[in-house]
């Protein structure tokens, strides 16, 4: 298959000084968004007690542990700003991301021991369930750094019960294990009750010498025989019992290593636990990359730092997606699928770190005077989806499924074409057909919302709302996600009221004020920080990190896939080179 993969078609051009100058103001606006995001990331990093105070106790922070256990530069954070319950801690109390440990890819997650000693807090289970979903999608191990003081008791009603409560996470561990996905845990500190199950539910348990895991901690055991109220006598008993359990907490090493044997090994130092996890990770099942690579890895010819000078901050301004692709694909090469059909969509194959990867993206700008082909009433513009683009995406993802190629989506879409003309062209049905096609693929996917993710197009283009295979979604400084633009929503909401008030001779100013307030609300609730906090995206990253996440995703996908298509049995590269209908050219007569 060398003829298909080794030298593909070049894409992209170097930016000119004039282009860089022209985008200077836009880039400054983008830099300002990233500066705000950096403050948010720092806020999360500094949540809870100070790192120095944790270290003074002889402990490492979660961030120290992550830095120690991962291969240098190989931690790609996810969910840093996620806080779906809008809790007072301002984060979910766990830190996670794609990580490489001892050369193997995994999802790494750990309790932030600075925040209430790693307590269960509101919104945390949603974060953990996202992590177990990613492990399931990518078929990679979960590595847990357990340090969990149990439920935050004054808010138990916000986290304990329900179908996606904190206990669901243990069930998910069982589910992963049954699917052949190991969960490795390093265990630190006191882990009572919920913390105990966080400790016991993984596959391999490696313990720090001072840790414990238990059905109930000292506090619960002490309070087992209340009179129904507290008095001087019960208070004294509680003091006595608390002192005892502080010296000798339930479920310590003496029980769970010496007696039950739940702990596989016990380590004297905190780093010893992490070294133990590294050893286990080195033994995790993984193919050598050469099994799936189609070419040697190569960096793009053009720098990723260019992207901030290509994607305009102004959402109305257009750009060429191919110039983004040129900064993300190995050697800035690609094979485009059906370039003459559905011009609003780019679909094609690229190499990422030498592995085959599919890309689907919105194109921007004018699509030609005769497109869409189903009407002369108007012309198409990029960002919108029309009949051909929807059909092309369905075809492409179906073939990716057949060839077992992971898909990376890039969204900058305002929606699907609307109106009776579009309905007659079957766009409603074709959008749902695409969702069906995607669901049928079973290949891991990743999404980058480059700018707009809007209307049903955000769903049908691989969005996580309507796609079981989307491992994670990333945002950028220019991301905005909403059902429709704020101005469109305000018009839709108040148009009839404007007519009514106009006819009644009323002052229009109050309605206009409401409309403008709605536009602002849409802006506030669609931009990067909001998207990250609510989980519309799993992380907001810098443009220059997009390729790094693509490399991490791709390596994780090809580490231990559940199904394989031999390279020489792939059909898609052959279809592309022959463009489906043309066939291979006949060789010249000798």
């Amino acid at each position: 298959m060398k003829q298909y993969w080794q030298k593909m078609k070049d894409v992209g051009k170097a930016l000119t000084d004039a282009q860089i100058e022209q985008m200077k103001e836009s880039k400054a606006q983008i830099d300002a968004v990233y500066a705000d995001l950096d403050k948010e990331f720092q806020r999360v990093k500094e949540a809870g007690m100070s790192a120095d105070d944790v270290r003074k106790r002889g402990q490492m922070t979660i961030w120290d542990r992550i830095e120690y256990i991962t291969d240098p530069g190989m931690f790609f954070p996810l969910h840093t700003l996620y806080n779906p319950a809008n809790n007072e801690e301002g984060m979910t109390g766990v830190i996670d991301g794609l990580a490489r440990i001892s050369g193997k890819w995994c999802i790494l997650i750990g309790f932030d021991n600075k925040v209430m000693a790693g307590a269960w807090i509101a919104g945390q289970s949603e974060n953990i369930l996202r992590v177990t979903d990613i492990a399931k999608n990518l078929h990679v191990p979960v590595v847990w750094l357990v340090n969990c003081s149990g439920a935050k008791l004054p808010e138990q009603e916000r986290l304990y019960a329900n179908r996606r409560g904190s206990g669901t996470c243990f069930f998910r561990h069982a589910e992963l294990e049954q699917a052949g996905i190991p969960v490795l845990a390093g265990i630190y500190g006191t882990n009572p009750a919920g913390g105990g199950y966080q400790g016991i539910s993984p596959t391999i348990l490696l313990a720090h010498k001072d840790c414990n895991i238990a059905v109930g901690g000292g506090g619960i055991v002490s309070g087992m025989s209340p009179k129904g109220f507290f008095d001087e006598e019960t208070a004294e008993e509680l003091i006595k019992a608390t002192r005892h359990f502080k010296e000798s907490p339930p479920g310590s090493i003496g029980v769970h290593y010496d007696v039950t044997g739940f702990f596989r090994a016990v380590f004297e130092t905190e780093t010893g636990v992490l070294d133990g996890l590294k050893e286990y990770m080195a033994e995790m099942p993984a193919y050598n990359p050469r099994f799936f690579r189609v070419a040697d890895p190569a960096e793009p010819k053009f720098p990723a730092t260019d992207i901030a000078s290509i994607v305009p901050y102004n959402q109305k301004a257009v750009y060429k997606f191919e110039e983004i692709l040129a900064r993300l694909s190995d050697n800035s090469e690609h094979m485009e699928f059906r370039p003459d059909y559905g011009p609003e969509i780019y679909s094609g194959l690229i190499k990422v770190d030498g592995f085959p990867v599919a890309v689907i993206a919105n194109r921007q700008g004018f699509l030609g005077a005769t497109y869409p082909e189903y009407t002369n009433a108007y012309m198409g513009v990029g960002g919108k989806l029309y009949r051909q683009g929807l059909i092309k995406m369905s075809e492409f993802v179906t073939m990716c499924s057949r060839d077992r190629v992971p898909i990376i989506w890039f969204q900058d879409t305002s929606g699907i074409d609307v109106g009776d003309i579009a309905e007659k062209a079957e766009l409603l049905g074709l959008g749902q057909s695409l969702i069906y096609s995607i669901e049928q693929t079973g290949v891991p996917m990743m999404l980058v919302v480059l700018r707009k993710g809007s209307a049903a197009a955000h769903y049908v283009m691989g969005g996580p709302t309507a796609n079981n295979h989307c491992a994670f979604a990333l945002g950028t400084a220019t991301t905005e996600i909403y059902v429709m633009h704020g101005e469109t929503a305000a018009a839709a909401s108040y148009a009839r009221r404007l007519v009514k008030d106009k006819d009644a001779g009323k002052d229009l100013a109050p309605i206009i004020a409401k409309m403008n307030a709605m536009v602002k609300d849409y802006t506030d609730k669609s931009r990067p920080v909001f998207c990250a906090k609510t989980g519309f995206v799993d992380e907001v990253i810098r443009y220059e990190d997009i390729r790094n996440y693509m490399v991490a995703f791709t390596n994780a996908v090809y580490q231990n896939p559940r199904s394989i298509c031999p390279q020489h049995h792939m059909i898609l590269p052959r279809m592309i080179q022959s463009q489906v209908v043309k066939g291979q050219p006949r060789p010249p007569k000798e």
Partner: protein
Amino acid sequence: MADVIVPMEGKVIKINVKVGDTVSADDEIIIMEAMKMEMPVSAGVSGVVKEIKVSVGQTFPADSAIMAIE
């Protein structure tokens, strides 16, 4: 002499050239707004701008000649 024809109706947002400028086929000579998007219009041919037939803020119908290039 070649006219730059824009097949889509729109509004002129910005004019990037002036009469007498030398342009290449790929140069974005105006930015127009249509269907809520700002779209560049390329010269299409290389040459010298002889006439600019629109002004900023002006709306124009489909198939308008907006510029002449020699």
